[in-house]
């Protein structure tokens, strides 16, 4: 039953994508209904699985009944479950927005691409196989290329070209890394690789180490870390609003892969008994996170329209999470991961919501859009301004909203780190820079309105009359943030448990490979015998 439900998380979107590719043009209303129902089903099923505690021990689904190193497995644990729930929340929000604002009819096949994107995202979060991860990356990227170019615009095309080329190069590097790992370790299953890493032949150790570094370079390209984040502000800043909101989860795929591969494959492991892997990647993550955060804060200052600022806020959150993932000092690691996950939920949901708010601004200010410049007064300026204020507080990390708590948890975990001083300095300074940038943006957007003769104050621009009900979508992420603040204690207890699950990879390994390494001689069933027959 639960096996089928977990498989449903991956296979429902792809089935819907196929159907929607056929109905998309002919029956727009039906397509909307199917797409929304699909996303809602994903949200309900994933939330039910997660809250029902099915992720407390890793659930393994062997596709086609082939056991772990031979077949492909899906693994549902708390971390992957949480990621799927987050994806579904963001998906429902941006789909509702797209349908409400009619953004989905700006080009063909919006809903089919959207579902394909969800297929790729959920697959990437659930798979336990590195090559399969590559395939799901490709699926989600190909869908995201289509979504990014949805609608039109010269700048969007230019940003789209950069995005596609950077990601194609990333995919090539991914294949090099996966190929080198397979050639030396002899497996593609994450758990199997983990078990086989200590047995790597000494002369293959440099190759394996290189392959692992290459793998993380790819993840950091997808996750938009310094120095490979420059594709993001363009792509996210010029995408249409619902697409940008959905993309709030995209960088998290890279970060999820970093966390998953680092915690399962590298923690407490060695490569061929020669290279200790626990601290192989983490220090790099920490430093890259610090640089990313600082540069992203400066990017927020430099952004000349709100969507670009939000894109840089996303980069800043990537930096913050990387700092937390880079802390490896013993028990502090659990605390750091728990804090990072809290911050992770906060930044995903709120940056999606912030993009929706930018969409509201674009509609309400026909002259200036979301450009940070003075424009004729907009309707509901007080309400929209208050929402902007709330988002800005949350994203910049001021109390009493979620960004503050996330940062406090991460900084608390960093107290024992030898790099405490630079971490505190960078996190606090960048927070200050972002506050200044957002305060400036807010005052330009909402205080310096000019009443021009053609536009007396409180005039309603065309199409703005329906604004109030639409505000609910912009308020919903803030409601999530409020719940996260009110329920901070139970949530953080749950996240502590999740962090514990992440930092004890033996649970994951036992679930996927209950019999340890299968050599051809000990492999159960026909496959082993046939293989043995072939050897002799």
């Amino acid at each position, binding site marked *: 039953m639960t096996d089928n439900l977990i498989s449903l998380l991956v296979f429902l979107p792809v089935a819907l994508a196929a159907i929607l590719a056929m109905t998309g043009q002919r029956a727009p209303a039906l397509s909307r209904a199917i797409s929304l129902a699909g996303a809602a089903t994903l949200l309900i099923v994933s939330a039910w699985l997660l809250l029902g505690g099915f992720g407390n021990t890793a659930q393994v689904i062997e596709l086609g009944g082939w056991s772990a190193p031979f077949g492909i497995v899906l693994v549902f644990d708390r971390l992957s479950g949480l990621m799927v729930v987050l994806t579904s929340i963001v998906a429902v929000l941006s789909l509702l927005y797209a349908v409400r604002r009619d953004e989905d009819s700006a080009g063909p096949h919006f809903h089919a691409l959207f579902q394909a994107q969800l297929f790729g995202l959920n697959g990437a979060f659930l798979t336990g196989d590195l090559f399969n991860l590559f395939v799901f990356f490709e699926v989600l990227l*190909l869908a995201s290329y289509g979504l990014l170019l949805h609608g039109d615009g010269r700048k969007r095309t230019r940003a789209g070209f950069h995005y596609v080329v950077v990601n194609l190069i990333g995919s090539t590097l991914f294949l090099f890394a996966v*190929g080198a790992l397979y*050639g030396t370790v002899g497996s593609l299953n994450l758990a199997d690789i983990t078990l086989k890493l200590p047995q790597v032949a000494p002369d293959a150790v440099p190759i394996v180490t290189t392959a692992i570094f290459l793998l993380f370079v790819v993840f950091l390209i997808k996750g938009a870390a310094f120095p490979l984040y420059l594709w993001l502000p363009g792509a996210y800043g010029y995408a249409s609003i619902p697409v940008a909101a959905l993309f709030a989860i995209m960088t998290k795929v890279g970060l999820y892969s970093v966390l998953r591969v680092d915690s399962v494959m590298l923690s407490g492991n060695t490569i061929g008994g020669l290279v200790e892997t626990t601290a192989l990647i983490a220090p790099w993550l920490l430093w890259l996170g610090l640089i990313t955060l600082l540069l992203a804060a400066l990017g927020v200052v430099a952004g000349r329209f709100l969507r670009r600022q939000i894109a840089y806020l996303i980069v800043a959150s990537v930096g913050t999470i990387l700092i937390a993932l880079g802390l490896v000092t013993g028990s502090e690691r659990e605390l750091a991961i728990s804090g990072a996950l809290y911050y992770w939920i906060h930044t995903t949901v709120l940056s999606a919501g912030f993009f929706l708010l930018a969409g509201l601004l674009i509609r309400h200010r026909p002259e200036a859009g979301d450009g940070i410049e003075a424009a004729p007064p907009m309707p509901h300026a007080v309400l929209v301004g208050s929402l902007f204020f709330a988002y800005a507080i949350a994203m910049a990390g001021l109390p009493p909203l979620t960004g503050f708590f996330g940062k406090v948890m991460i900084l608390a975990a960093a107290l024992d780190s030898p790099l405490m001083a630079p971490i505190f300095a960078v996190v606090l300074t960048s927070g200050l820079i972002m506050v200044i940038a957002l305060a400036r943006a807010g005052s330009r957007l909402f205080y310096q309105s000019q009443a021009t003769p053609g536009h007396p104050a409180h005039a309603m621009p065309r199409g703005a009359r329906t604004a109030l009900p639409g505000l609910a979508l912009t308020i919903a992420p803030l409601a999530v943030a409020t719940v996260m603040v009110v329920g901070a204690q139970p949530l953080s207890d749950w996240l502590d448990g999740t962090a514990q699950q992440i930092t004890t990879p033996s649970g994951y390994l036992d679930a996927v490979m209950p019999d340890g390494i299968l050599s051809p001689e000990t492999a159960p069933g026909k496959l082993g015998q046939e293989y043995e027959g072939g050897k002799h």
Partner: protein
Amino acid sequence: MTNLAISLLIGVLTGAGVYLVLRAQTFPVVLGLTLMSYGVNLFLFTMGRLHTAAPAVVGATEQSADALPQALVLTAIVIAFAMTAFVIVLALKARAALGNDHVDGTHIPQADRVIDRRKEPRA
């Protein structure tokens, strides 16, 4: 000897691909991506080790080739092929929308009027 030849080939393909990807016009970039994907496909293929006269059927001959890299390379070829087709269309769209084929879409004054491509200003 074959190993050396194949390694050199992978190196040359990837190197040429990287060089072309760093060019400023979209067409060389697309070519570069294609060459890089050729390089990585060959690389994946050789990760199953090079055997002569060894089919990927277990038990058919003394030594059997590893079938998995062949499956991987097939997947990679299909994906790379689709991506190339997509990126070419995107490059054409960018050429049409931006009026030139610079990767940043930077408008070069008078570029439209230059008929002889050799005289076109270098970007």
